[in-house]
């Protein structure tokens, strides 16, 4: 940021540029800037450097949505969803590593029965992490695999069962209908488990991420977001638009391709990085 000697329209323009260039989007940026101007006026603040601090506070507040308590309450079923290639399967491996390290028994369910080598990919992760996996042959019904997976998890009293689904565009009604069916199979076969539905968003996604979140939330009631690939140069500002307009919390952040590249979302750390 350039040095400003006083609070001016240029200062606000510069802050807006930061929000736009980190994919926060026009609508949420506009609303946040209005809130910022109001707060500056109300506080009678005259120091330009304080304006930036106020903005950070507004953004941290916006992102401080309650995280679903279920993440710490096994027995748990985690359904992982999202569009193609965002990082679902890899995030599942990371989640399994996380829960296993906490002493939980885990089971993976390979409910992506469509994409080439999807089952092999998850099986490879299972083998590497020492976590069992429930699979079926390619082309079979994902709902059936989920049913088998939950039955096995409940019979063996597994603490955390994590379900991988095929990537799908939110614009494909038939695929979203398939996902809704998978979700119903989950809710009807949980036993005494909590169900957590996590949507994976790619940190490099533009405004389409908001459409994704909206449609997935309408279809399967998303509880939280995994923001993957934050180790790139994209800042993941789309989650601010998602928090602002859909009130969905970010639960996890993916920072690489290895099993330990997952951490709990920290709003303050995230907002600081937005301004780096």
């Amino acid at each position, binding site marked *: 940021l350039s040095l400003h000697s006083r609070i001016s329209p240029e200062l606000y323009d510069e802050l807006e*540029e930061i929000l*736009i*260039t*980190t*994919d926060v*989007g*026009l609508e949420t940026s506009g609303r946040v800037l209005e809130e910022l101007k109001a707060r500056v006026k109300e506080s009678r603040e005259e120091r330009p450097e304080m304006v930036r601090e106020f903005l950070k506070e507004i953004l941290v507040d916006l992102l401080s949505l309650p995280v679903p308590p279920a993440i710490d309450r096994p027995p748990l079923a985690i359904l992982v969803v999202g*569009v*193609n*290639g*965002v*990082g679902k399967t890899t995030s599942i491996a990371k989640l399994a590593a996380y829960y296993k390290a906490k002493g939980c028994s885990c089971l993976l369910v390979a409910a992506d029965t*469509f*994409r*080439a*080598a999807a089952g*092999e*990919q998850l*099986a*490879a*992760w299972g083998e*590497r992490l020492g976590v069992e996996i429930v699979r079926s042959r390619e082309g079979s019904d994902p709902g059936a695999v989920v049913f088998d997976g939950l039955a096995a998890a409940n019979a063996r009293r597994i603490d955390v069962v994590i379900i991988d689904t095929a990537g799908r*565009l*939110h*614009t494909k009604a038939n695929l979203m209908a398939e996902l809704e069916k998978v979700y119903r199979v989950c809710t009807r076969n949980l036993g005494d488990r909590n169900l957590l539905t996590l949507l994976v968003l*790619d940190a*490099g*996604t*533009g*405004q*389409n*991420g908001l*459409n994704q979140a909206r449609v997935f939330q309408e279809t399967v009631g998303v509880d939280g977001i995994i923001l993957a*690939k934050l*180790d*790139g*140069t*994209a*800042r993941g500002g*789309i989650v601010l638009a998602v928090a602002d307009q859909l009130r969905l919390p970010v639960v996890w952040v993916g920072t690489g*391709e290895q099993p330990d590249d997952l951490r709990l979302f920290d709003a303050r750390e995230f907002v600081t990085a937005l301004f780096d």
Partner: protein
Amino acid sequence: NLAGRLQETLRKLRGKGKLTEIDVDEALREVKLALLEADVNFRVVRSFINRVRERAIGKEVTSSLTPGQMVVKIVHQELTALMGAKEEKIRVAPQPPTVVLLVGLQGSGKTTTTAKLGRYLKMQGRRPMLAAADIYRPAAVRQLQILGEKLELPVYFSEGKDPVAIAREAVAAVKKQNCDYLLVDTAGRLHVNEELMEELRAIKEAVRPEEILLVVDAMTGQDAVNVARSFHEKLALTGLVLTKLESDTRGGAALSIREVTGCPIKLVGTGEKLEDLEVFYPDRLASRILG
């Protein structure tokens, strides 16, 4: 919505007999918002608007009988010019085999696109071979092998070898099997991972590709320019593939990448099936971006 407002502003503008600078600024502001909402890079938008404004207050508009219409025409012209004037073909090397290298960020669609391109070339009467040079991602080689089997195309892989060796050996295999195209699938990587970017440069040096295609997810946001610029500086890209364009993303990243690298968008992915690959038409994306 923005697209509707833009159409309305441009419609009103077309009808005006005489334009004031306020009319022009108002219209350009709507164009700017539409482009930003479509994920076009902030700085690319700014320079684009400045170019259009310069023409809009110039003689071609002020001396026109329908200045409003002229401005709208300028916007469309500048957008289409930016996207590239016409479709661009996949190159053919002077001597076979033609090597094509597919590169890009994690999850952008490289492996699927490699197979799709193989199918596309086969339908054109070519004899492509695919090379599985992603040794890192679990079951990446399997993924390409399965797709190759579906298409009845040979897939080259060599257990225990590094990606540079695999690519080099694949070229030898292509010549032996009398194939005329080699499509090399590489691991997804961050443009800021120096070691992995160096690996790509080493693959390029080893097999001298005719085409180096950056595979980009059409829903990428403002960061697209950083990614494309880095890959282009390191490798001298020859083209781009935009994937997942059948989604409702406006695809503004394509415009930004084109502006910053000058690379032509050659192909577009329009679905998950192997037949979902099309030639890129620049004017179609221009109208899509403007809503």
